[in-house]
């Protein structure tokens, strides 16, 4: 990544809890960023490659094509800690080894989701996979920002409930 590009990233407000990008990510020194540099996540305890791989893995576990990478990045950002670093290193190394055994450079460079999923299926009973998957259940789906993508409206008491806002407005029966 160029010096200018890195500066460009730093001028932007980095997402406080996490960041972005997975297989699509551009990796810089200490950052994983979106290709258009619209957002970025800084990594400290794990490598850019590991963060990018975690993000792709998260997307492959719970793929929602209308949910942007930044939400998945938020969901896995919590693994960028000294406590998690060894688990992440071991888990990502296993993913990459499996990818290499299948003739690819590494996990994130595998082009087809089905090929990556086949690798995940082989390791789905392991602790690393289960930790990441389990964490995503709340880490991804409990982000209020993704709820509208599913149509879910969240809190309603402050708006008086739905008694005057369509609790019985179904019109196709």
């Amino acid at each position, binding site marked *: 990544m160029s010096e200018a590009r890195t500066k460009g990233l730093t001028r932007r407000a980095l997402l406080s809890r996490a960041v972005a990008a997975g297989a699509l990510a551009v990796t810089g020194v200490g950052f994983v960023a979106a290709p258009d540099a619209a957002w970025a996540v800084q990594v400290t305890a794990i490598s850019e490659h590991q963060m990018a791989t975690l993000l792709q893995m998260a997307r*492959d*576990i*719970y*793929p*929602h094509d*209308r949910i942007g990478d930044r939400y998945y990045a938020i969901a896995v950002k919590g693994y960028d800690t000294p406590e998690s670093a060894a688990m992440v290193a071991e888990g990502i190394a296993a993913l990459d080894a499996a990818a290499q055994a299948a003739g690819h450079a590494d996990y994130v460079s595998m082009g087809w989701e089905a090929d990556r*999923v086949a690798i995940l299926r082989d390791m*789905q009973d392991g602790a690393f996979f289960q930790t990441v*998957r389990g964490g995503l*259940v*709340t880490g*991804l*789906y*409990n982000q209020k920002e993704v*709820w509208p993508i*599913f*149509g*879910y*409206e*969240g*809190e*309603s*008491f*402050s708006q*008086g*409930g*739905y*008694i005057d*806002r*369509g*609790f*019985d*407005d*179904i019109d*196709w*029966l």
Partner: protein
Amino acid sequence: MANAAKFELTDDSVVVIIGTGAGGGVLANELAQKGVKVVALEAGGRYLPEDYVNDEWDSFGQLAWTDPRTTSGDWRVAKDFGGLPAWIVKAVGGTTTHWAGASIRFQDHEWKALTTYGAVEGANLLDWPIDAAEMAPWYDLAEAKLGVTLTEGREGLPGNNNYKVFEAGAKALGYTEVHTGRMAINSADYDDRPACQQTGFCFQGCKWGAKWSSAYTDIPRGEATGNLEVRDHAHVARILHNDAGRVTGVEYFDRDGNLQFQAARIVAVAGNSFESPRLLLNSASDMFPDGLANSSGHVGRNYMRHTTGSVYGIFEKPVRMWRGTTMAGIMQDESRHDPARGFVGGYELETLALGLPFMAAFLDPGSWGREFTSALDQYEYMAGMWIVGEDMPQETNRVTLSDTVDRFGLRVANVNFSDHPNDVAMRNHAYERGQAMYRAMGATRTLPTPPYPSTHNLGTNRMSERPEDGVVNKWGQTHDIPNLFVSDGSQFTTGAAENPTLTIVALAIRQADHIAREMASGTL
């Protein structure tokens, strides 16, 4: 709480009640109204409607019992939620903060399951020592207390989107007993509680107070008599007894973690079907080496959780099932006993909606990939229903003491559960019927969803005519110790097909009447 009583730890004239939910909370108020002095000990904190939050995980963190428990058996909950066998509440008001509000009486024959169904291999069926006629007046009082809709001339709740799909599907299959339910949720202002505002989030505590909960009805009313003291953050460790085999009071850890002893004339246990047997077992002594009230060996046995499961349907057009009352819809045609279906007992189908976060957690726990996410992507187009049917009591489905201990060093409950073949047959029948209802309305995909962590926790201190068959008699009084009562769903001899809260409340009102009468006569 201006008039709330304050009793001395040494006051051995009080009735000590452990737990403040549908059983304990009601018993506390009913006794207080009759002039009986009561100390209610509640492990959780005190939360009121202004404290409840319209957010599934935040509310779970606020209200749910998340102290350690362990699990075993072949039920899927043990694999997916091994430390969380039940989704129930640790707070003043207990699970009446979380419950859906469905309030239906047992069918007459369900009080006599053994007689009606006959012996079922592998099951431990027994008739209740009480019957429908005995319970009818107590049900009347319970329905009035809770303000149950579609009883006593009260209007039903209006049907929401989820109900409308459910009703149309049921009627398309020829079902006739379909309505918005007998619900302890006001359809009009009643008893100082407002009408339902169709907010959703019934499971997270009703912020309007439109749903009945002992937290903001029976508890404060009992306190207002000056006869009830509720101590929250009071975790009971043991029930003690004297050489005559009578209980004398309870040891509990107070909010500061200090061990206290509260003397008692009578002790009533109402901690739910896990904590109540756990407490009796943890109270073992030289005189009662197998635990209190356990001469029969039945304490902890015959745990029931209802045969449950959910069915979700995905449609071409939006449903938005989360809008409005969470469970105001029921189809009762399958609740009859009809062995021609391949199982004994019956089941109800009831509308149910989860929010997006809980749908992600419970739709198919452990599942991942596009089979899972393509369903969740259609969340806005989903309708949902819940199965609640009678499950078979089995001696080996039981609560025992785990080797795991809680923060006080007390052994926690291990919950062992495996389905009986009758449970499996019933669930499969219900899955098929529920999916047929949605397909009749044009569902493009249906999802037979596995049972959630239990919300209906029954048995484990069951009621029996003969002391050798159970733990308590027809008053909820333990067979072994006359001044020790059980006041929650753990008394249930069998589970019936109905949501249990109304029956727990009716039993508590009846038990209060009995205890007050016996105290007045000097028998207790």
